[in-house]
């Protein structure tokens, strides 16, 4: 059984169809890259998988571990192991990062029928991961993402990924707004999380990110569909020739 199966997905936003029958299969342990021009529906796909309100699914289905994902609330999806690393992580003033991390982790564990982490275990785990990602302790005491730089926000997403141990990570334009050094740190964090029981879907406009997070499979999206799939060399090909050929094809 595949981890994620998107079948003939059709999605509308405010009466406009964005995805026109998109299909995608991701197996455990695989890293998939989804590339495509702006407006091709990449971010819509990531939002629909995570359960963001405002999208109307008019056809097709999404199975996650064989279950109908579209019937689950966003929090139920998170507890099942879906993690969306946001392109623009929000700032939440007044909610300390530590409080947020702990509340989220325990909510997921509770939903799965697991016990809550004890405070010392939790603190130890967060400190360990934070150190690895070069996240200073004082950042954890601040409001979630408040006053964080672009790179810090993305590292905070990776920190959560490491803490929640999801089975599917969707990285939505992780490279946007990052300079090369910040990108490398974030990508190293992601690479450390690659594992045979975890799949990743890396959504990006540029090939650059894929130099750091090397995918097993590359898909090209255009106008709401996957128009071509191939190995990692497909990304390099795109870098050389651009998206225009696929826009014509689609």
């Amino acid at each position, binding site marked *: 059984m595949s981890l994620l199966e998107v079948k003939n997905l059709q999605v509308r936003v405010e009466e406009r169809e964005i995805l026109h029958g998109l299909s995608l299969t991701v197996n455990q342990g695989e890293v998939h890259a989804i590339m495509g021009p702006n407006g091709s529906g990449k971010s819509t796909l990531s939002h629909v998988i995570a359960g963001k309100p405002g999208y109307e699914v008019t056809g097709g289905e999404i199975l996650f571990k064989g279950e109908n994902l579209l019937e689950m609330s*966003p*929090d139920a*999806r*998170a507890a099942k192991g879906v993690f969306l690393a946001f392109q623009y992580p929000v700032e939440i003033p007044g*909610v300390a990062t530590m409080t947020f991390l702990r509340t989220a982790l325990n909510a997921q564990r509770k939903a799965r029928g697991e016990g809550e982490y004890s405070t010392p275990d939790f603190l130890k785990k967060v400190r360990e991961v934070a150190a690895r990602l070069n996240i200073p302790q004082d950042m954890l005491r601040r409001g979630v993402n408040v006053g964080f730089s672009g790179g810090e926000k993305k590292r905070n997403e990776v920190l959560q990924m490491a803490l*929640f141990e999801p089975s599917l990570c969707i990285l939505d334009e992780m490279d946007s707004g990052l300079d090369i050094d910040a990108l490398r740190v974030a990508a190293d964090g992601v690479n450390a999380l690659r594992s045979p029981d975890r799949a990743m879907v890396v959504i990006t406009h540029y090939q650059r990110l894929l130099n750091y997070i090397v995918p097993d499979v590359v898909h090209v999206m255009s106008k709401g569909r996957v128009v071509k799939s191939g190995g990692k060399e497909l990304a390099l090909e795109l870098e050389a020739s651009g998206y225009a050929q696929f826009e014509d094809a689609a």
Partner: protein
Amino acid sequence: MVDADFVMNVALAKTEPGRALSDALSLAGDRLPGAGKVAEQRRLAFDAYTRIGLPHRRIEDWKYTDLRALMREVLPLAATPDAAAISRAASALKLHAIDGVRRLVLVDGVFAPTLSETGSLEKGLAIGTLREALLSGDAALQARLFGLQNPDAMAALNGAMMTDGVVIEVADGVTLTQPLHIVHIAGGSAPSAMFTRSLLKLGNAAAATLVESYIAADGAKAYQVHDSLIVSIGDGARLDHVRLIEDGREAFNISSHQVTLGAKAHFNSFGLTGGANVSRYQATIAFAGEGSRAETNGVNLLNGRQHADSTLVLDHAVPHCESREIFRSVVDDRGHSVFQGRIIVRPHAQKTDAKMMTRALLLSDEAEADNKPELEIFADDVTCGHGATTGALDESLLFYLRARGLSEKEAQALLIQAFVGEAIESIANDDLRELAIAAAQRWLAARG
């Protein structure tokens, strides 16, 4: 005592609310302590009340809190609590006990010595009851008790009917180490009204912490709290103050405060309203000496059909004083939150620095919040500012939290806590801040 003139005057009350009150008063009988001058003051207060009766929406200050529609009538004076009421109050008290404080308990508007701690007072602390003060013949003290300036109808009614309360004095230079906790408990007898007035005087360079709680014993339902507090803070003195309205969901709570600050004094005040059906907190904070500072902050947490009104007047009568008001309201279902903040800067009060910020969070389409800031500035060298916002929870923040595994209610609770956090953070005293956080969490937990 029975004052014949007074009773007659009551019987002559013409207005509808006046008639309701005259019923209340005829039942009050000789339970209103004080003769002579006190009775005369009661009569004046009563006249002031009957001229208006229960305030209604055509009276500007009560525009959003139409008591004539909401309260309809003043209930009869509560009976003196019997042993059963005291015992129910004792049980309620256990649930709201705060460690390390000196408890002063009023049950159904009557001071309850058995539930209070008046023994082994710290040096420089004097505690008496309002009843004693009214019976004492201490003219100076009584003048202070009737010293509410420009009382409105409800403060006047409170003055006419007040039966008991606590009278606290802290001597010059004394810092109380133990916070004072005045607890108002509705004892659960028949629907009735309690009328209390308390006095707190901090001497020069004194410091104290005052907590006020309003709670209900089992069985207390449609009762009315009519309370007032007169505070004077001496030169260089400091008062930390928290009030928690956790009355029963059918109760009415009408409280009037008057706070006067001397020179270089400090008043840090925070109020949280999560209980009561209808509540109104009206406070006048007056600067009488230069170089003083007041923070009067608050949070309303309302749902069902709750109505809570905070009406504050900051009276900058002298130069070089600072005032800060941070107010947050969270309104769910058909709740209604009202914040009226008036800042008066009198002609000579140069270098006044006054700021007021109020924000409302509406959790349902039928929730309502009215914010009315008013600045009356008669001096030309001042810094004054105000702001008011009303909005819903940010959908993008809610989705972020839900995508991380928080249920809708959990996500809302976290964001609500953050929203009220700024007002709660303003509580200077750590223990008091914890109290307020716990009260807010109780409200969120009850919300489910």
